[in-house]
């Protein structure tokens, strides 16, 4: 990605062109997705797509954490939940609207990420997975027992409409378009992180923590930082979710949804900018396309995950890209052979 980086000086400036190229497919796909309402899709399709888009925003945060830094969170839905409950409580108690709730919820989720991250990221990978898993369960328990403040097991209703430039976003198509725009912002933000020197520092930690530390990189602080960054994405995803559903409850943010998020990012591929988008869409629409009931779809997801881990460790998109490259090089070799054949014939004739 930074093959073209200029090497002078201590802080190399990355050449923008090759990096920008990686962003183009995502933006093209998102533009196409934004045009879907022209085909007058069903409300069911729009609802599914909105849920998928909201997940994808969280997945872009998760890709910074898992794809770049190599840390897996098994409690990411809980951070989405922190954002969702923050938005709902702010709206109920203080009449805070959507746009103000966004930064506040992002900050709240980031703070929760820091609180979970500081003790657990110091002790290494597996502990972090367990700690985030426990955090997800703990949050569900706290929300369930929070009495009227958190709405207990029933959860909270989201009050207040979403307005953009005076237009009501309650309409499904409009909300759909707004979510697509948020996904685009999340993709660009994630891309900017990946292509910054900060992103490269995170990758250095992923590749070799011990070596990174020997080169003056504060490994612990950067790992916590990556988790906090992923928390910001999760918080924003939560606000969009609360406003879309109109009602939130603790089970939505417990372990299972977290496992689903981890699954999506693994299936799509965490390192490429197209991965979260592909993973989010695939997992949302697969049961619909194959007409599966929830139990069947869980089985399919499980099989998919095992298949991806065994066969495509870098995710579906990277796997497809590698396959295409292989086919392409095989074809061009074939062509080269043919051309050589054509060229060699006249020379033989001359002889």
């Amino acid at each position: 990605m930074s093959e073209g980086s200029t090497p002078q000086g201590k802080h190399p400036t990355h050449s923008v062109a090759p990096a920008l190229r990686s962003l183009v497919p995502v933006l093209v796909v998102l533009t196409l997705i934004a045009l879907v309402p022209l085909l007058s899709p069903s409300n069911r399709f729009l609802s599914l797509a909105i849920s998928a888009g909201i997940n994808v925003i969280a997945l872009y945060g998760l890709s910074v954490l898992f794809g770049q830094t190599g840390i897996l969170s098994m409690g990411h839905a809980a951070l989405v939940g922190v954002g969702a409950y923050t938005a709902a409580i702010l709206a109920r108690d203080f009449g805070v609207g959507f746009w103000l709730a966004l930064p506040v919820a992002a900050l709240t989720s980031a703070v929760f990420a820091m609180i979970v991250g500081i003790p657990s990221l110091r002790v290494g990978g597996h502990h972090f997975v367990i700690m985030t898993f426990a955090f997800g369960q703990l949050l569900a328990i706290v929300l369930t027992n929070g009495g009227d403040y958190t709405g207990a097991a029933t959860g909270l209703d989201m009050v207040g409409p979403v307005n953009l430039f005076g237009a009501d976003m309650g309409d499904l198509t409009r909300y759909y378009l707004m979510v697509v725009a948020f996904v685009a912002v999340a993709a660009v933000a994630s891309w900017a992180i990946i292509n910054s020197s900060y992103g490269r520092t995170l990758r250095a930690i992923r590749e070799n923590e011990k070596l990174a530390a020997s080169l003056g990189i504060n490994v612990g602080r950067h790992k916590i930082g990556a988790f906090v960054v992923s928390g910001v994405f999760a918080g924003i995803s939560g606000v969009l979710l609360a406003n879309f559903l109109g009602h939130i409850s603790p089970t939505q943010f417990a372990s299972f949804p977290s496992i689903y998020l981890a699954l999506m990012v693994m299936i799509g591929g965490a390192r490429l900018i197209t991965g979260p988008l592909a993973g989010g869409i695939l997992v949302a629409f697969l049961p619909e396309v194959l007409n599966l009931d929830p139990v069947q779809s869980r089985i399919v997801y499980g099989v998919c995950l095992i298949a991806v881990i065994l066969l495509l460790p870098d995710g579906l998109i990277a796997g497809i890209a590698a396959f295409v490259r292989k086919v392409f090089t095989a074809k061009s070799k074939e062509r080269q052979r043919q051309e050589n054949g054509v060229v060699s014939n006249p020379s033989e004739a001359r002889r």
Partner: protein
Amino acid sequence: MSPILEIRGLSKQFGGVAALAGVDLAVEEGEILGVVGPNGSGKTTLFNVVTGVHRPNAGSVSFRGRDITGSAPHAISRAGIGYTFQQAMAFAGLSMLENVQIAGEHVRAGANANTPWPTPQALLDFVGLTALADEKAGVLPFGSLRLLGLALALATQPALLLLDEPAAGLNDRETTALVGLVRQLPGHGITVCVIDHDMKLMQMLCRRLAVLDFGSKIADGPTEAVLADPKVLEVYLGGDL
């Protein structure tokens, strides 16, 4: 002149075993000091305690007069102590050049931070890897990986460089090349401390040797004198010497 690195009464226990039992050692500015000893004598523990991997049970380490005992590994690096590992390491998924660039990005107010420093390319050139600059570090042969490790440590602008068995796994030609490089370092303002049990290498590199045995220093002085010391001969009898 006071030593650049001063180790006083350093002790480290693992369970009931004393890996270091009160070691005193001073590294003088501008020298190449060798720390030798048979396997299990505490060389790598000494290295790990100085670089912050382990916390000592007793004793202190001070660098340029500043107490750095128990500092974190990244803080040690930022203070101006570069170090390489016994196992050659690099960021396998990144190119050689990117490896060295990253290594130079986190330099803080370390000892040599204010002096002009070679660019990442110049460092790759110094260790003779310019031709491979765009190759991914993961595909490198072992010898090149060692040299890259040296370039990475140098990119952190160290005033003191600690090398843990820098020639392990290298062939004779590669070892000679490495010795040639390390010998140049004091001329560039970098003090070197090499930890190894390979006496041939140490004789080529160091004018002064310190010998560890069972976590204690048993000899310290000019290389020839140390090698003639009966205590040292006894430790190495049947060993590498």
